[in-house]
Protein backbone atom coordinates (compact mmCIF):
# COMPACT_ATOMS: atom_id res chain seq x y z
CA UNK A 1 0.00 0.00 0.00
CA UNK A 2 1.37 3.35 -0.88
CA UNK A 3 1.31 5.28 2.29
CA UNK A 4 2.06 8.94 2.01
CA UNK A 5 1.86 11.13 5.04
CA UNK A 6 1.84 14.89 5.14
CA UNK A 7 4.84 14.72 7.41
CA UNK A 8 6.73 13.82 4.30
CA UNK A 9 7.01 17.49 3.59
CA UNK A 10 8.36 18.66 6.90
CA UNK A 11 11.95 18.25 5.87
CA UNK A 12 12.92 19.23 2.36
CA UNK A 13 16.06 19.53 0.27
CA UNK A 14 15.81 23.32 0.60
CA UNK A 15 16.13 23.01 4.34
CA UNK A 16 19.43 21.31 4.90
CA UNK A 17 19.32 19.31 8.08
CA UNK A 18 19.98 21.39 11.13
CA UNK A 19 23.32 19.98 12.05
CA UNK A 20 25.07 20.73 8.82
CA UNK A 21 27.16 23.55 10.16
CA UNK A 22 28.74 21.19 12.64
CA UNK A 23 30.37 19.21 9.85
CA UNK A 24 33.39 17.67 11.49
CA UNK A 25 36.29 15.59 10.30
CA UNK A 26 35.25 12.51 8.38
CA UNK A 27 36.70 9.24 9.54
CA UNK A 28 36.99 5.99 7.59
CA UNK A 29 33.95 4.59 9.33
CA UNK A 30 31.91 7.65 8.23
CA UNK A 31 32.78 6.89 4.63
CA UNK A 32 31.86 3.25 5.15
CA UNK A 33 28.47 4.23 6.50
CA UNK A 34 27.89 6.58 3.59
CA UNK A 35 28.87 3.81 1.19
CA UNK A 36 26.42 1.44 2.86
CA UNK A 37 23.63 4.03 2.63
CA UNK A 38 24.39 4.63 -1.05
CA UNK A 39 24.50 0.92 -1.89
CA UNK A 40 21.19 0.49 -0.12
CA UNK A 41 19.73 3.37 -2.16
CA UNK A 42 21.05 1.78 -5.35
CA UNK A 43 19.32 -1.48 -4.47
CA UNK A 44 16.03 0.32 -3.94
CA UNK A 45 16.36 2.25 -7.19
CA UNK A 46 17.54 -0.81 -9.17
CA UNK A 47 14.08 -1.92 -10.32
CA UNK A 48 13.42 1.54 -11.76
CA UNK A 49 16.69 1.45 -13.69
CA UNK A 50 16.00 -2.06 -14.99
CA UNK A 51 12.55 -1.00 -16.17
CA UNK A 52 13.94 2.09 -17.84
CA UNK A 53 16.64 0.15 -19.71
CA UNK A 54 14.33 -2.58 -20.96
CA UNK A 55 11.50 -0.35 -22.09
CA UNK A 56 13.72 0.76 -24.94
CA UNK A 57 14.94 -2.69 -26.01
CA UNK A 58 13.64 -4.86 -28.80
CA UNK A 59 12.52 -8.38 -27.83
CA UNK A 60 15.40 -9.80 -29.92
CA UNK A 61 17.89 -7.58 -28.13
CA UNK A 62 16.43 -8.69 -24.82
CA UNK A 63 16.65 -12.34 -25.77
CA UNK A 64 20.31 -12.14 -26.70
CA UNK A 65 21.68 -9.74 -24.08
CA UNK A 66 19.32 -10.26 -21.15
CA UNK A 67 17.71 -7.67 -18.89
CA UNK A 68 20.81 -5.97 -17.52
CA UNK A 69 22.66 -4.62 -20.52
CA UNK A 70 21.97 -1.26 -22.09
CA UNK A 71 19.84 -1.41 -25.24
CA UNK A 72 22.01 -1.90 -28.35
CA UNK A 73 19.83 0.63 -30.14
CA UNK A 74 16.82 2.58 -28.98
CA UNK A 75 13.59 0.80 -29.74
CA UNK A 76 10.26 2.51 -29.18
CA UNK A 77 7.92 -0.18 -30.50
CA UNK A 78 7.30 -1.66 -27.05
CA UNK A 79 6.12 1.66 -25.71
CA UNK A 80 4.17 2.39 -28.88
CA UNK A 81 2.54 -1.05 -28.78
CA UNK A 82 1.40 -0.60 -25.23
CA UNK A 83 0.36 3.01 -25.81
CA UNK A 84 -1.95 1.95 -28.61
CA UNK A 85 -3.12 -1.32 -27.09
CA UNK A 86 -4.63 0.38 -24.06
CA UNK A 87 -5.25 3.77 -25.69
CA UNK A 88 -3.02 5.34 -23.09
CA UNK A 89 -4.11 9.00 -23.51
CA UNK A 90 -7.66 7.93 -22.69
CA UNK A 91 -6.51 6.13 -19.50
CA UNK A 92 -4.38 9.10 -18.56
CA UNK A 93 -7.37 11.40 -18.96
CA UNK A 94 -9.62 9.09 -16.90
CA UNK A 95 -7.11 8.98 -14.07
CA UNK A 96 -6.58 12.72 -14.29
CA UNK A 97 -10.28 13.54 -14.34
CA UNK A 98 -11.18 11.20 -11.48
CA UNK A 99 -8.27 12.26 -9.27
CA UNK A 100 -8.76 15.95 -10.01
CA UNK A 101 -12.49 15.87 -9.29
CA UNK A 102 -11.96 13.93 -6.09
CA UNK A 103 -9.22 16.30 -4.94
CA UNK A 104 -11.41 19.38 -5.41
CA UNK A 105 -14.68 17.94 -4.10
CA UNK A 106 -13.03 16.29 -1.11
CA UNK A 107 -11.33 19.54 -0.11
CA UNK A 108 -14.65 21.42 -0.33
CA UNK A 109 -16.34 18.84 1.91
CA UNK A 110 -13.38 18.86 4.29
CA UNK A 111 -13.54 22.66 4.57
CA UNK A 112 -17.25 22.60 5.42
CA UNK A 113 -16.79 19.87 8.00
CA UNK A 114 -13.73 21.48 9.54
CA UNK A 115 -15.48 24.86 9.68
CA UNK A 116 -18.20 23.35 11.85
CA UNK A 117 -15.82 21.26 13.91
CA UNK A 118 -12.73 23.45 14.23
CA UNK A 119 -14.22 26.95 14.19
CA UNK A 120 -17.79 26.23 15.27
CA UNK A 121 -16.73 23.64 17.87
CA UNK A 122 -20.02 21.80 17.57
CA UNK A 123 -20.93 19.46 20.38
CA UNK A 124 -19.52 15.95 20.16
CA UNK A 125 -16.86 16.97 17.65
CA UNK A 126 -14.32 14.36 18.77
CA UNK A 127 -16.84 11.62 18.05
CA UNK A 128 -17.75 13.16 14.73
CA UNK A 129 -14.10 13.04 13.71
CA UNK A 130 -13.76 9.45 14.89
CA UNK A 131 -16.88 8.51 12.94
CA UNK A 132 -15.62 10.13 9.76
CA UNK A 133 -12.28 8.40 10.16
CA UNK A 134 -14.04 5.06 9.80
CA UNK A 135 -14.09 5.82 6.09
CA UNK A 136 -10.31 5.76 6.09
CA UNK A 137 -9.83 2.80 8.33
CA UNK A 138 -12.36 0.27 7.04
CA UNK A 139 -11.26 -2.30 4.53
CA UNK A 140 -12.90 -1.28 1.28
CA UNK A 141 -14.23 -4.81 0.84
CA UNK A 142 -16.63 -4.13 3.71
CA UNK A 143 -18.38 -1.52 1.53
CA UNK A 144 -17.70 -3.02 -1.86
CA UNK A 145 -20.70 -5.19 -2.61
CA UNK A 146 -23.39 -2.87 -1.24
CA UNK A 147 -21.84 0.02 -3.17
CA UNK A 148 -21.62 -2.14 -6.28
CA UNK A 149 -25.30 -3.01 -5.93
CA UNK A 150 -26.36 0.57 -5.19
CA UNK A 151 -24.49 2.06 -8.12
CA UNK A 152 -25.90 -0.61 -10.42
CA UNK A 153 -29.42 0.33 -9.30
CA UNK A 154 -28.94 4.05 -10.00
CA UNK A 155 -27.11 3.47 -13.29
CA UNK A 156 -23.74 4.80 -12.14
CA UNK A 157 -21.95 1.44 -12.37
CA UNK A 158 -19.09 1.54 -14.85
CA UNK A 159 -19.21 5.31 -14.72
CA UNK A 160 -16.29 7.37 -13.48
CA UNK A 161 -18.65 9.31 -11.18
CA UNK A 162 -19.19 6.24 -9.00
CA UNK A 163 -15.48 6.22 -8.19
CA UNK A 164 -15.40 10.01 -7.80
CA UNK A 165 -18.22 9.95 -5.25
CA UNK A 166 -16.69 7.12 -3.22
CA UNK A 167 -13.23 8.65 -3.00
CA UNK A 168 -14.58 12.11 -2.27
CA UNK A 169 -16.00 10.66 0.93
CA UNK A 170 -12.96 8.56 1.81
CA UNK A 171 -10.43 11.34 1.24
CA UNK A 172 -12.52 14.00 2.95
CA UNK A 173 -12.42 11.92 6.12
CA UNK A 174 -8.71 12.55 6.37
CA UNK A 175 -9.15 16.18 5.28
CA UNK A 176 -11.73 16.75 7.98
CA UNK A 177 -9.40 15.35 10.61
CA UNK A 178 -6.44 17.43 9.50
CA UNK A 179 -8.27 20.70 8.80
CA UNK A 180 -10.26 20.51 12.02
CA UNK A 181 -7.07 20.66 14.02
CA UNK A 182 -5.69 23.45 11.83
CA UNK A 183 -8.90 25.50 12.13
CA UNK A 184 -9.05 24.77 15.84
CA UNK A 185 -6.06 27.04 16.30
CA UNK A 186 -7.19 29.73 13.86
CA UNK A 187 -6.31 33.25 15.16
CA UNK A 188 -9.41 34.41 16.97
CA UNK A 189 -8.67 38.13 16.47
CA UNK A 190 -9.03 37.86 12.70
CA UNK A 191 -12.41 36.16 13.05
CA UNK A 192 -13.60 38.76 15.56
CA UNK A 193 -12.48 41.62 13.36
CA UNK A 194 -14.30 40.21 10.35
CA UNK A 195 -17.37 39.63 12.44
CA UNK A 196 -17.33 43.24 13.75
CA UNK A 197 -17.17 44.44 10.16
CA UNK A 198 -20.50 42.71 9.69
CA UNK A 199 -19.37 39.71 7.66
CA UNK A 200 -21.74 36.76 7.71
CA UNK A 201 -20.58 33.26 8.54
CA UNK A 202 -20.48 32.27 4.90
CA UNK A 203 -18.49 35.39 4.03
CA UNK A 204 -16.03 34.72 6.84
CA UNK A 205 -15.54 31.18 5.61
CA UNK A 206 -15.08 32.02 1.95
CA UNK A 207 -13.29 35.38 2.23
CA UNK A 208 -11.20 34.97 5.37
CA UNK A 209 -10.69 31.37 6.40
CA UNK A 210 -10.28 29.73 3.00
CA UNK A 211 -7.81 32.33 1.63
CA UNK A 212 -5.72 32.23 4.80
CA UNK A 213 -5.60 28.43 4.86
CA UNK A 214 -5.00 28.12 1.12
CA UNK A 215 -1.51 26.62 1.50
CA UNK A 216 -2.86 23.80 3.67
CA UNK A 217 -5.71 23.27 1.21
CA UNK A 218 -3.20 23.03 -1.63
CA UNK A 219 -1.38 20.29 0.24
CA UNK A 220 -4.63 18.39 0.67
CA UNK A 221 -5.50 18.77 -3.01
CA UNK A 222 -2.16 17.28 -4.00
CA UNK A 223 -2.31 14.40 -1.55
CA UNK A 224 -5.90 13.54 -2.48
CA UNK A 225 -4.93 13.63 -6.13
CA UNK A 226 -2.00 11.25 -5.69
CA UNK A 227 -3.85 8.91 -3.35
CA UNK A 228 -6.82 8.65 -5.70
CA UNK A 229 -4.55 8.14 -8.69
CA UNK A 230 -2.91 5.17 -6.94
CA UNK A 231 -6.16 3.48 -5.85
CA UNK A 232 -6.82 0.04 -7.20
CA UNK A 233 -9.59 -2.13 -5.73
CA UNK A 234 -12.56 0.20 -6.23
CA UNK A 235 -11.62 1.38 -9.75
CA UNK A 236 -10.98 -2.26 -10.68
CA UNK A 237 -14.43 -3.26 -9.51
CA UNK A 238 -16.43 -0.28 -10.72
CA UNK A 239 -14.79 0.65 -14.00
CA UNK A 240 -15.09 -2.53 -16.00
CA UNK A 241 -15.25 -1.22 -19.54
CA UNK A 242 -12.02 -0.39 -21.24
CA UNK A 243 -13.00 3.19 -21.96
CA UNK A 244 -13.43 4.03 -18.27
CA UNK A 245 -10.35 2.44 -16.77
CA UNK A 246 -7.61 4.28 -14.94
CA UNK A 247 -3.89 3.93 -15.60
CA UNK A 248 -3.11 1.42 -12.82
CA UNK A 249 -6.17 -0.70 -13.61
CA UNK A 250 -5.53 -0.83 -17.35
CA UNK A 251 -1.92 -1.86 -16.76
CA UNK A 252 -2.84 -4.54 -14.24
CA UNK A 253 -5.62 -5.93 -16.42
CA UNK A 254 -3.26 -6.28 -19.36
CA UNK A 255 -0.82 -8.38 -17.34
CA UNK A 256 -2.92 -11.46 -17.94
CA UNK A 257 -2.57 -10.93 -21.67
CA UNK A 258 -0.25 -13.65 -22.96
CA UNK A 259 0.51 -11.70 -26.08
CA UNK A 260 2.46 -9.12 -24.13
CA UNK A 261 6.13 -9.65 -24.73
CA UNK A 262 8.70 -8.92 -22.09
CA UNK A 263 9.71 -5.49 -23.33
CA UNK A 264 6.12 -4.34 -23.73
CA UNK A 265 5.47 -5.32 -20.12
CA UNK A 266 8.44 -3.26 -19.14
CA UNK A 267 7.19 -0.35 -21.22
CA UNK A 268 3.78 -0.57 -19.54
CA UNK A 269 5.44 -0.35 -16.13
CA UNK A 270 7.43 2.67 -17.28
CA UNK A 271 4.31 4.46 -18.55
CA UNK A 272 2.58 3.64 -15.28
CA UNK A 273 5.28 5.11 -13.11
CA UNK A 274 6.13 8.25 -15.07
CA UNK A 275 2.99 10.28 -14.19
CA UNK A 276 3.38 9.72 -10.46
CA UNK A 277 7.06 10.60 -10.58
CA UNK A 278 6.24 13.79 -12.45
CA UNK A 279 3.65 14.87 -9.85
CA UNK A 280 6.04 14.12 -7.09
CA UNK A 281 8.78 16.26 -8.59
CA UNK A 282 6.48 19.15 -9.52
CA UNK A 283 4.69 19.36 -6.22
CA UNK A 284 7.48 18.92 -3.73
CA UNK A 285 7.86 22.69 -3.34
CA UNK A 286 4.15 23.40 -2.95
CA UNK A 287 4.01 20.75 -0.29
CA UNK A 288 6.76 22.36 1.78
CA UNK A 289 5.28 25.81 1.50
CA UNK A 290 1.93 24.42 2.57
CA UNK A 291 3.29 22.71 5.60
CA UNK A 292 5.18 25.71 6.93
CA UNK A 293 2.36 28.18 6.27
CA UNK A 294 -0.44 25.95 7.45
CA UNK A 295 1.52 24.80 10.47
CA UNK A 296 0.13 21.32 10.06
CA UNK A 297 1.10 19.15 12.99
Amino acid at each position, binding site marked *: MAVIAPELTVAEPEHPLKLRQRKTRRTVSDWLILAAAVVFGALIAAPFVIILINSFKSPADYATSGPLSLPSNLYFDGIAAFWERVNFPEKLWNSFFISGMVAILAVVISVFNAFAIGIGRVRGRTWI*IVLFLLA*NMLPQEALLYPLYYMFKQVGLYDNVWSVIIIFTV*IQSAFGTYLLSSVYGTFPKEILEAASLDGASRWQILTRVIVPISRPTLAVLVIFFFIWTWNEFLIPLTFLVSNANQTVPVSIAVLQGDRLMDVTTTSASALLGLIPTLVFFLIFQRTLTRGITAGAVK
Partner: protein
Amino acid sequence: MAVVPVVARSRATRSTDEQSLLPNSGSGGRAGFWLYLIPGFALFLVVILIPLVWNIYLSFTEWRGIKPPEFIGLDNWVELAGDTKFWTSFGNSIAMIIAMVIVPTLLGLLLAAMLFDLVGKKFGGRVASFLRATYYLPQVLPVAVAAIVIGWILRPENGALNTVLAAIGLGDLQHNWLGSPDTALLSIMFVMVWVQLGYPVVIFMAALQRVDPELYEAAELDGANWLQRFRWITVSIIRPEIFVVTLTCTIAALKVFGPIYTLTRGGPGTSTIVPSYYSYSEFFQNQQVGYGATIATALTVVIVLLTVVFIKAQNRAERAESER
Protein backbone atom coordinates in the same frame (compact mmCIF):
# COMPACT_ATOMS: atom_id res chain seq x y z
CA MET B 1 -3.83 4.62 0.02
CA ALA B 2 -3.85 3.87 3.65
CA VAL B 3 -3.60 6.77 5.92
CA VAL B 4 -5.12 6.50 9.29
CA PRO B 5 -4.28 9.55 11.28
CA VAL B 6 -3.88 9.20 14.96
CA VAL B 7 -7.13 9.55 16.74
CA ALA B 8 -5.18 9.77 19.96
CA ARG B 9 -3.92 13.18 19.01
CA SER B 10 -7.36 14.67 18.71
CA ARG B 11 -7.56 14.40 22.48
CA ALA B 12 -5.60 17.62 22.54
CA THR B 13 -8.53 19.54 21.06
CA ARG B 14 -10.94 18.13 23.57
CA SER B 15 -9.61 20.05 26.53
CA THR B 16 -9.80 23.45 24.81
CA ASP B 17 -12.67 25.79 25.58
CA GLU B 18 -16.13 24.90 24.45
CA GLN B 19 -16.84 28.28 22.85
CA SER B 20 -17.02 28.69 19.11
CA LEU B 21 -14.11 30.68 17.74
CA LEU B 22 -16.59 32.98 16.03
CA PRO B 23 -18.50 35.41 18.22
CA ASN B 24 -22.21 34.66 18.17
CA SER B 25 -23.26 37.25 15.64
CA GLY B 26 -24.53 34.89 12.95
CA SER B 27 -27.79 33.01 12.87
CA GLY B 28 -28.49 30.22 15.30
CA GLY B 29 -25.41 30.49 17.51
CA ARG B 30 -23.14 27.47 17.71
CA ALA B 31 -25.89 25.15 16.50
CA GLY B 32 -25.96 27.02 13.16
CA PHE B 33 -22.66 25.37 12.32
CA TRP B 34 -24.43 22.05 11.91
CA LEU B 35 -25.63 23.28 8.52
CA TYR B 36 -22.09 22.97 7.26
CA LEU B 37 -21.90 19.32 8.30
CA ILE B 38 -24.93 18.34 6.23
CA PRO B 39 -23.18 17.61 2.91
CA GLY B 40 -20.40 15.67 4.62
CA PHE B 41 -22.83 13.67 6.72
CA ALA B 42 -25.16 12.93 3.82
CA LEU B 43 -22.33 11.58 1.68
CA PHE B 44 -20.87 9.66 4.60
CA LEU B 45 -24.25 8.07 5.24
CA VAL B 46 -24.68 6.92 1.64
CA VAL B 47 -21.13 5.81 0.89
CA ILE B 48 -19.90 4.48 4.24
CA LEU B 49 -22.51 3.92 6.90
CA ILE B 50 -25.33 2.32 4.92
CA PRO B 51 -23.01 0.01 2.94
CA LEU B 52 -21.21 -0.96 6.14
CA VAL B 53 -24.40 -1.89 7.98
CA TRP B 54 -25.71 -3.60 4.85
CA ASN B 55 -22.51 -5.63 4.56
CA ILE B 56 -22.82 -6.74 8.18
CA TYR B 57 -26.40 -7.80 7.46
CA LEU B 58 -25.29 -9.67 4.34
CA SER B 59 -22.84 -11.67 6.43
CA PHE B 60 -25.90 -13.38 7.95
CA THR B 61 -27.43 -14.24 4.59
CA GLU B 62 -27.01 -16.52 1.65
CA TRP B 63 -26.95 -14.37 -1.46
CA ARG B 64 -25.76 -14.99 -4.96
CA GLY B 65 -26.46 -11.41 -6.04
CA ILE B 66 -29.60 -12.07 -8.09
CA LYS B 67 -32.56 -13.30 -6.04
CA PRO B 68 -33.12 -11.47 -2.74
CA PRO B 69 -30.76 -12.40 0.10
CA GLU B 70 -31.96 -15.24 2.33
CA PHE B 71 -31.38 -14.89 6.06
CA ILE B 72 -29.46 -17.88 7.41
CA GLY B 73 -28.40 -16.70 10.85
CA LEU B 74 -24.93 -17.64 11.96
CA ASP B 75 -24.30 -20.28 9.28
CA ASN B 76 -21.69 -18.20 7.43
CA TRP B 77 -19.89 -17.43 10.65
CA VAL B 78 -19.83 -21.08 11.67
CA GLU B 79 -18.51 -21.98 8.25
CA LEU B 80 -15.88 -19.23 8.52
CA ALA B 81 -14.63 -20.57 11.85
CA GLY B 82 -13.92 -23.93 10.25
CA ASP B 83 -12.65 -22.63 6.92
CA THR B 84 -8.95 -23.46 6.59
CA LYS B 85 -8.67 -21.15 3.58
CA PHE B 86 -9.80 -18.27 5.77
CA TRP B 87 -7.28 -19.10 8.49
CA THR B 88 -4.56 -19.42 5.89
CA SER B 89 -5.46 -15.97 4.65
CA PHE B 90 -5.15 -14.58 8.16
CA GLY B 91 -1.85 -16.37 8.61
CA ASN B 92 -0.67 -14.61 5.47
CA SER B 93 -1.82 -11.32 6.98
CA ILE B 94 0.72 -11.92 9.71
CA ALA B 95 3.36 -12.37 7.04
CA MET B 96 2.21 -9.04 5.58
CA ILE B 97 2.54 -7.42 9.00
CA ILE B 98 6.10 -8.68 9.25
CA ALA B 99 6.86 -7.36 5.77
CA MET B 100 4.97 -4.07 5.99
CA VAL B 101 5.28 -3.13 9.66
CA ILE B 102 8.01 -4.88 11.60
CA VAL B 103 10.81 -4.96 9.06
CA PRO B 104 10.22 -1.46 7.61
CA THR B 105 9.86 0.12 11.04
CA LEU B 106 13.04 -1.40 12.46
CA LEU B 107 15.03 -0.86 9.29
CA GLY B 108 13.52 2.60 8.83
CA LEU B 109 14.49 3.59 12.35
CA LEU B 110 18.05 2.54 11.75
CA LEU B 111 18.25 4.18 8.32
CA ALA B 112 16.67 7.42 9.52
CA ALA B 113 19.04 7.66 12.46
CA MET B 114 21.97 6.84 10.21
CA LEU B 115 21.01 9.42 7.60
CA PHE B 116 20.19 12.13 10.10
CA ASP B 117 22.81 11.53 12.72
CA LEU B 118 25.82 10.35 10.73
CA VAL B 119 25.40 11.09 7.03
CA GLY B 120 23.62 14.43 7.61
CA LYS B 121 26.22 15.63 10.11
CA LYS B 122 29.32 14.53 8.30
CA PHE B 123 28.37 14.92 4.66
CA GLY B 124 25.71 17.61 4.72
CA GLY B 125 21.93 17.69 4.64
CA ARG B 126 21.72 17.53 0.88
CA VAL B 127 23.33 14.11 0.70
CA ALA B 128 20.99 12.85 3.41
CA SER B 129 17.93 14.37 1.70
CA PHE B 130 18.87 12.84 -1.61
CA LEU B 131 19.24 9.38 -0.11
CA ARG B 132 15.97 9.79 1.73
CA ALA B 133 14.20 10.66 -1.53
CA THR B 134 15.69 7.54 -3.14
CA TYR B 135 14.39 5.33 -0.35
CA TYR B 136 11.01 6.99 -0.72
CA LEU B 137 10.73 6.45 -4.48
CA PRO B 138 8.72 3.17 -4.43
CA GLN B 139 6.10 4.87 -2.25
CA VAL B 140 4.91 7.23 -4.98
CA LEU B 141 4.15 4.38 -7.36
CA PRO B 142 0.61 3.06 -7.66
CA VAL B 143 0.94 -0.21 -5.80
CA ALA B 144 -0.43 -2.13 -8.77
CA VAL B 145 2.35 -0.72 -10.93
CA ALA B 146 4.94 -1.41 -8.25
CA ALA B 147 3.80 -5.01 -8.23
CA ILE B 148 4.13 -5.22 -12.00
CA VAL B 149 7.64 -3.84 -11.85
CA ILE B 150 8.66 -6.53 -9.40
CA GLY B 151 6.63 -9.27 -11.05
CA TRP B 152 8.51 -8.54 -14.22
CA ILE B 153 11.85 -8.83 -12.45
CA LEU B 154 10.85 -12.11 -10.81
CA ARG B 155 9.42 -13.83 -13.88
CA PRO B 156 10.80 -17.34 -14.30
CA GLU B 157 11.97 -17.15 -17.92
CA ASN B 158 14.61 -14.50 -18.51
CA GLY B 159 13.49 -12.39 -15.55
CA ALA B 160 16.11 -10.01 -14.22
CA LEU B 161 16.67 -11.78 -10.90
CA ASN B 162 17.23 -15.20 -12.43
CA THR B 163 19.53 -13.67 -15.06
CA VAL B 164 21.59 -11.93 -12.37
CA LEU B 165 21.86 -15.16 -10.42
CA ALA B 166 23.10 -16.99 -13.49
CA ALA B 167 25.53 -14.21 -14.29
CA ILE B 168 27.18 -14.27 -10.88
CA GLY B 169 27.49 -18.05 -10.90
CA LEU B 170 24.56 -18.82 -8.66
CA GLY B 171 22.51 -20.36 -11.44
CA ASP B 172 21.44 -23.15 -9.11
CA LEU B 173 19.38 -20.68 -7.14
CA GLN B 174 17.21 -19.79 -10.14
CA HIS B 175 13.63 -20.26 -9.26
CA ASN B 176 10.06 -19.59 -10.29
CA TRP B 177 9.83 -17.05 -7.48
CA LEU B 178 6.13 -16.22 -7.66
CA GLY B 179 4.98 -19.43 -9.25
CA SER B 180 6.03 -21.97 -6.65
CA PRO B 181 4.29 -22.29 -3.31
CA ASP B 182 7.50 -22.30 -1.27
CA THR B 183 8.70 -18.88 -2.39
CA ALA B 184 5.58 -17.01 -3.55
CA LEU B 185 4.73 -15.53 -0.16
CA LEU B 186 8.33 -14.68 0.58
CA SER B 187 8.64 -12.92 -2.78
CA ILE B 188 5.57 -10.81 -2.05
CA MET B 189 6.97 -9.99 1.37
CA PHE B 190 10.12 -8.70 -0.31
CA VAL B 191 8.03 -6.54 -2.62
CA MET B 192 6.18 -5.06 0.34
CA VAL B 193 9.36 -4.26 2.24
CA TRP B 194 10.64 -2.48 -0.86
CA VAL B 195 7.38 -0.54 -1.22
CA GLN B 196 7.01 0.37 2.44
CA LEU B 197 10.48 1.20 3.63
CA GLY B 198 10.52 4.85 2.53
CA TYR B 199 7.52 5.79 4.63
CA PRO B 200 9.06 5.25 8.08
CA VAL B 201 12.37 6.72 6.94
CA VAL B 202 10.70 9.98 5.91
CA ILE B 203 8.50 10.23 8.98
CA PHE B 204 11.29 9.37 11.39
CA MET B 205 13.70 11.82 9.79
CA ALA B 206 11.14 14.58 10.14
CA ALA B 207 10.67 13.59 13.77
CA LEU B 208 14.38 13.64 14.44
CA GLN B 209 14.44 17.37 13.71
CA ARG B 210 12.71 17.77 17.05
CA VAL B 211 15.63 16.29 18.95
CA ASP B 212 17.70 18.94 20.66
CA PRO B 213 21.32 18.51 19.47
CA GLU B 214 22.51 19.43 22.95
CA LEU B 215 21.02 16.22 24.24
CA TYR B 216 23.34 14.26 21.99
CA GLU B 217 26.30 16.39 22.94
CA ALA B 218 25.64 15.92 26.63
CA ALA B 219 25.28 12.17 26.15
CA GLU B 220 28.45 12.08 24.12
CA LEU B 221 30.32 13.90 26.86
CA ASP B 222 28.97 11.42 29.36
CA GLY B 223 30.55 8.71 27.26
CA ALA B 224 27.45 7.18 25.67
CA ASN B 225 28.25 5.40 22.42
CA TRP B 226 26.19 5.75 19.25
CA LEU B 227 24.04 2.74 20.01
CA GLN B 228 23.24 3.99 23.51
CA ARG B 229 22.37 7.43 22.21
CA PHE B 230 20.18 5.83 19.54
CA ARG B 231 18.35 3.74 22.10
CA TRP B 232 17.90 6.31 24.86
CA ILE B 233 17.53 9.58 22.96
CA THR B 234 16.44 8.89 19.38
CA VAL B 235 13.97 6.10 20.01
CA SER B 236 12.42 7.62 23.10
CA ILE B 237 11.90 11.04 21.54
CA ILE B 238 10.31 9.85 18.33
CA ARG B 239 8.11 7.30 20.06
CA PRO B 240 4.87 9.05 18.93
CA GLU B 241 5.94 8.73 15.30
CA ILE B 242 6.87 5.10 15.80
CA PHE B 243 3.36 4.59 17.07
CA VAL B 244 1.77 6.35 14.09
CA VAL B 245 3.83 4.34 11.62
CA THR B 246 3.10 1.06 13.34
CA LEU B 247 -0.63 1.66 13.48
CA THR B 248 -1.06 2.97 9.94
CA CYS B 249 1.10 0.25 8.44
CA THR B 250 -0.60 -2.52 10.39
CA ILE B 251 -3.96 -1.43 9.06
CA ALA B 252 -2.50 -1.20 5.56
CA ALA B 253 -1.01 -4.69 5.93
CA LEU B 254 -4.35 -6.16 6.93
CA LYS B 255 -6.05 -4.48 3.97
CA VAL B 256 -3.47 -5.33 1.32
CA PHE B 257 -5.07 -6.23 -2.01
CA GLY B 258 -3.38 -4.69 -5.07
CA PRO B 259 -0.09 -6.61 -5.01
CA ILE B 260 -1.84 -9.93 -4.40
CA TYR B 261 -4.27 -9.33 -7.23
CA THR B 262 -1.62 -8.25 -9.71
CA LEU B 263 1.12 -10.72 -8.74
CA THR B 264 -0.43 -14.04 -7.76
CA ARG B 265 -4.23 -13.84 -7.34
CA GLY B 266 -3.70 -15.67 -4.07
CA GLY B 267 -1.93 -18.59 -5.65
CA PRO B 268 -0.30 -20.97 -6.23
CA GLY B 269 -3.03 -22.82 -4.38
CA THR B 270 -3.81 -20.65 -1.39
CA SER B 271 -0.21 -19.87 -0.56
CA THR B 272 -0.53 -16.09 -0.93
CA ILE B 273 -4.22 -15.56 -0.27
CA VAL B 274 -5.16 -12.67 2.05
CA PRO B 275 -8.60 -11.93 3.59
CA SER B 276 -9.15 -8.97 1.32
CA TYR B 277 -8.53 -10.97 -1.85
CA TYR B 278 -10.50 -13.94 -0.50
CA SER B 279 -13.57 -11.79 0.05
CA TYR B 280 -13.18 -10.13 -3.35
CA SER B 281 -13.06 -13.52 -5.07
CA GLU B 282 -16.13 -14.73 -3.16
CA PHE B 283 -18.03 -11.63 -4.30
CA PHE B 284 -17.12 -11.57 -7.95
CA GLN B 285 -15.83 -14.99 -8.95
CA ASN B 286 -17.86 -17.43 -6.85
CA GLN B 287 -20.94 -15.21 -6.51
CA GLN B 288 -21.06 -16.12 -2.82
CA VAL B 289 -21.91 -12.60 -1.74
CA GLY B 290 -23.07 -13.55 1.74
CA TYR B 291 -19.90 -15.45 2.52
CA GLY B 292 -17.72 -12.73 1.01
CA ALA B 293 -19.49 -10.23 3.26
CA THR B 294 -18.72 -12.46 6.25
CA ILE B 295 -15.01 -12.42 5.45
CA ALA B 296 -15.07 -8.64 4.94
CA THR B 297 -16.93 -8.12 8.20
CA ALA B 298 -14.48 -10.33 10.09
CA LEU B 299 -11.60 -8.31 8.66
CA THR B 300 -13.32 -5.08 9.70
CA VAL B 301 -13.79 -6.35 13.23
CA VAL B 302 -10.12 -7.28 13.47
CA ILE B 303 -9.01 -3.87 12.21
CA VAL B 304 -11.32 -1.92 14.50
CA LEU B 305 -10.36 -3.98 17.56
CA LEU B 306 -6.69 -3.67 16.80
CA THR B 307 -6.97 0.10 16.41
CA VAL B 308 -8.77 0.46 19.72
CA VAL B 309 -6.19 -1.70 21.51
CA PHE B 310 -3.35 0.26 19.87
CA ILE B 311 -4.74 3.64 20.83
CA LYS B 312 -5.48 2.53 24.40
CA ALA B 313 -1.94 1.23 24.76
CA GLN B 314 -0.55 4.46 23.35
CA ASN B 315 -2.60 6.60 25.71
CA ARG B 316 -1.46 4.52 28.65
CA ALA B 317 2.16 4.84 27.58
CA GLU B 318 1.74 8.59 27.18
CA ARG B 319 0.25 8.92 30.64
CA ALA B 320 3.02 6.83 32.16
CA GLU B 321 5.54 9.02 30.38
CA SER B 322 4.07 12.27 31.67
CA GLU B 323 3.85 10.97 35.22
CA ARG B 324 7.50 10.07 35.31
